[in-house]
């Protein structure tokens, strides 16, 4: 399917994601203007502050967005009982985008106003203008072109940065880009990237045009003052309106279901959501696609009520305990630790183990007659390996794995997990660590080497739920019990393949699967 066909077929969704994207960019730029312009003006009054303030804004721009999200999510800051900082979703994305947009706006306001000809400023003072009148009737109108140039830069940056907001369930065109990377699907990546690029171009052109108008001077101080006030009021209006939509009332009966940011997780999240909706009659809010450890952090913070976690991941990556190889021992351990530490309950395991799959190309496996990781160890010195950031950093990941098998690769490349498959297929690397349930394994003729030394601990998939949620909706406990042992490794791989390989919608795949298992509808 080419890009054009895809966009046409999914135009409703494309439109919705574009609107979400516009909302993120518009709101964050609006807030950045409301903060940045007054701040820039203040700096012209107290120039001693300009170094520290501009320095801070400069540093904010260099902080990688995922790191910034990681820092913002655990925050819990309230203003009049409304949470203004922290958590996942649009709120945190907007805070991050505002921080990125501040620098160009503050800097241009400061340099624009400082750059007004001193003779003109003195003429104004000599005619008896107060500081306020001088500011609104002379300094702001004369520097409006420069200030708008800053807004223009900030807007274009925001359009690009907002694609990353999809990592914390803030929506926008980034959803297509992330989904495309995960599924190794160029069309999908372009479906997110091309509209975002167009949006940036249009914003650049429109604001460039506005900037030109103000630079050549629109007549009339009244007009200029009116423009300033009207745009301030407009920005304020948008912010109030969107705060209302961003902070919905909490009275509704609903449960937030989360997922990490790969296909299997989204399928499992959708299974939880559909079962909770049909069997418990509680509306499920889907907060999928949470990058890194964000799903866990969101669960602890109460932003998400349930998601599916893997026992080995919880043991080593979250609880920071040493790896164990016995599955029931791991389960027992994490269940008691989570109950004590996080007030979170581990329900029935779903029935499959998604362990790390050490993968090579099928052709290599056949040519070199490889079956186990030990078989491959002798070739490692000539091979390049590609691993996801997760695998490189976790305690049950690369370091221990290399030690257990005495591996030393010719080259080690760390990249996004979804890119490792592509790199392997394209002969950029020769060995990767994927997931055993991955649909791409069959699709790309990859071969999974057996973990003959039983290095990897068990990763049984288990729904984890906040105890508070179970107390509020006791029926959910019974519903989740129905899922115990429901999904085998093969079934999981099938489900993944239907989504990744056949490009089918997650909702349909899950509905079909639940029908087959007799878990659809009421009853």
């Amino acid at each position, binding site marked *: 399917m080419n890009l054009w066909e895809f966009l046409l077929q999914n135009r409703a969704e494309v439109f919705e994601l574009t609107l979400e994207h516009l909302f993120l960019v518009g709101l964050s730029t609006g807030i950045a203007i409301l903060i940045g312009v007054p701040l820039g003006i203040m700096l012209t009054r107290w120039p001693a502050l300009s170094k520290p303030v501009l320095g801070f804004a400069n540093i904010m721009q260099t902080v990688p967005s995922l790191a910034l999200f990681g820092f913002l999510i655990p925050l819990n800051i309230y203003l009049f009982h409304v949470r203004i900082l922290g958590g996942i979703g649009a709120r945190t994305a907007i805070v991050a985008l505002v921080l990125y947009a501040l620098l160009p706006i503050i800097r241009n306001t400061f340099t624009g106003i400082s750059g007004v000809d001193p003779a003109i400023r*003195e003429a104004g003072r000599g005619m*008896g203008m*107060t500081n306020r009148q001088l500011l609104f009737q002379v300094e702001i109108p004369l520097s409006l072109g420069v200030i708008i140039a800053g807004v223009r830069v900030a807007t274009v940056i925001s359009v690009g940065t907002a694609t990353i907001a999809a990592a914390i369930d803030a929506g926008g065109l980034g959803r297509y880009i992330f989904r495309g990377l995960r599924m190794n699907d160029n069309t999908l990546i372009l479906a997110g990237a091309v509209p975002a690029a167009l949006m940036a171009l249009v914003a650049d052109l429109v604001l460039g045009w506005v900037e030109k108008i103000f630079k050549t001077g629109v007549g009339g101080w009244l007009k200029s003052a009116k423009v300033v006030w009207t745009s301030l009021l407009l920005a304020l209006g948008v912010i109030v309106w969107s705060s209302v939509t961003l902070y919905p009332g909490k009275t509704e009966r609903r449960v937030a279901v989360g997922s990490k940011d790969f296909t299997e997780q989204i399928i499992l999240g959708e299974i939880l959501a559909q079962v909770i909706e049909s069997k418990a009659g509680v509306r499920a809010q889907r907060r999928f696609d949470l990058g890194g450890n964000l799903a866990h952090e969101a669960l602890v913070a109460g932003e998400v009520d349930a998601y599916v976690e893997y026992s080995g991941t919880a043991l080593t990556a979250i609880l920071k305990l040493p790896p164990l190889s016995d599955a029931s021992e791991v389960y027992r351990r994490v269940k008691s630790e989570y109950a004590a530490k996080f007030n979170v309950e581990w329900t029935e395991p779903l029935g499959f183990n998604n362990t790390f799959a050490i993968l090579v190309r099928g052709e290599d496996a056949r040519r070199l007659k490889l079956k186990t990781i030990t078989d491959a160890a002798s070739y490692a010195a000539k091979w390049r390996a590609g691993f996801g950031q997760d695998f490189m950093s976790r305690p049950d990941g690369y370091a221990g794995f290399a030690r257990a098998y005495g591996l030393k690769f010719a080259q080690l490349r760390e990249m996004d997990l979804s890119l490792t498959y592509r790199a392997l297929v394209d002969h950029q690397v020769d060995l990767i660590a994927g997931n055993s349930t991955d649909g791409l394994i069959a699709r790309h003729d990859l071969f999974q080497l057996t973990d003959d030394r039983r290095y990897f601990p068990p990763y049984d998939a288990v729904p984890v739920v906040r105890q508070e949620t179970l107390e509020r909706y006791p029926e959910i406990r019974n519903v989740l019990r129905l899922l115990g042992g429901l999904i085998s490794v093969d079934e999981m791989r099938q489900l993944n393949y239907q989504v990744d390989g056949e490009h089918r919608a997650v909702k349909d795949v899950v509905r079909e699967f639940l029908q087959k298992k007799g878990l659809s509808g009421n009853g």
Partner: protein
Amino acid sequence: MGMKTDSQKSIEFRSVGFRLSNGRALLSGLDLEVYQGETLILLGRSGCGKTTTLKLINRLLDPTEGEVRVEGTATTRWDPIRLRRRVGYVIQEIGLFPHLTVEENVGVVPRLEGWEAEKIRARTRELLDMVGLEPGRFATRYPRELSGGQRQRVGVARALAADPPIILLDEPFGALDPITRREIQQEFRSLQKRLGKTLVFVTHDVREAFLLASRIALLKDGKMVLLGQPADLLNSGDPEAKAFADCLHDPDSPEGSA
């Protein structure tokens, strides 16, 4: 000129000095009175303290010694905003607001004073007529669309807008070509007679000084070396006064003779 009473004194300098924060004195020991309706010319070379003297009147600067009185009250006791609105201010052409039309530039002070739009409009047209700019042609132009002489006329009209009793002019015609300058000086002279305002006019052009002055104050290195009528300058033995008087008769003067 007979004795003037206090009520006729528009501006007074009493032992006024002005020092920069680094200690350098720009002006010292200045005693000077400007009477209602007269045109006092502050004459001198660049950097002699003329502009500083002017800025002390509308409180763009405060004296570091002595005091300046406007209408009998020390400037430091005036609200600077109220003071500046009673004192018109004309500087070189650069002082026009580039983002405002001619009409809007002229109407700045009336608007600050909260006049009604209709009254501002009428006043603006009247003033443009007065300075020789046809309102229908010029009112909606921007400063960048005017010649140097036209801009300067707008500057004068702007200073007159709210009918202030005192007007300060800082080398208003300095940037103009000699011919335009001569024309606008002649027009200004007739305007001056009609209006009867108190004018303090800074220039380094001795011809301009002679053409417009009631009295001339000659400054050198921050001190006043001569105060008197134009004839007094010609008769003075002071070397600086002689130097300026010589310029007046010099046939090679770049300004030429009118």
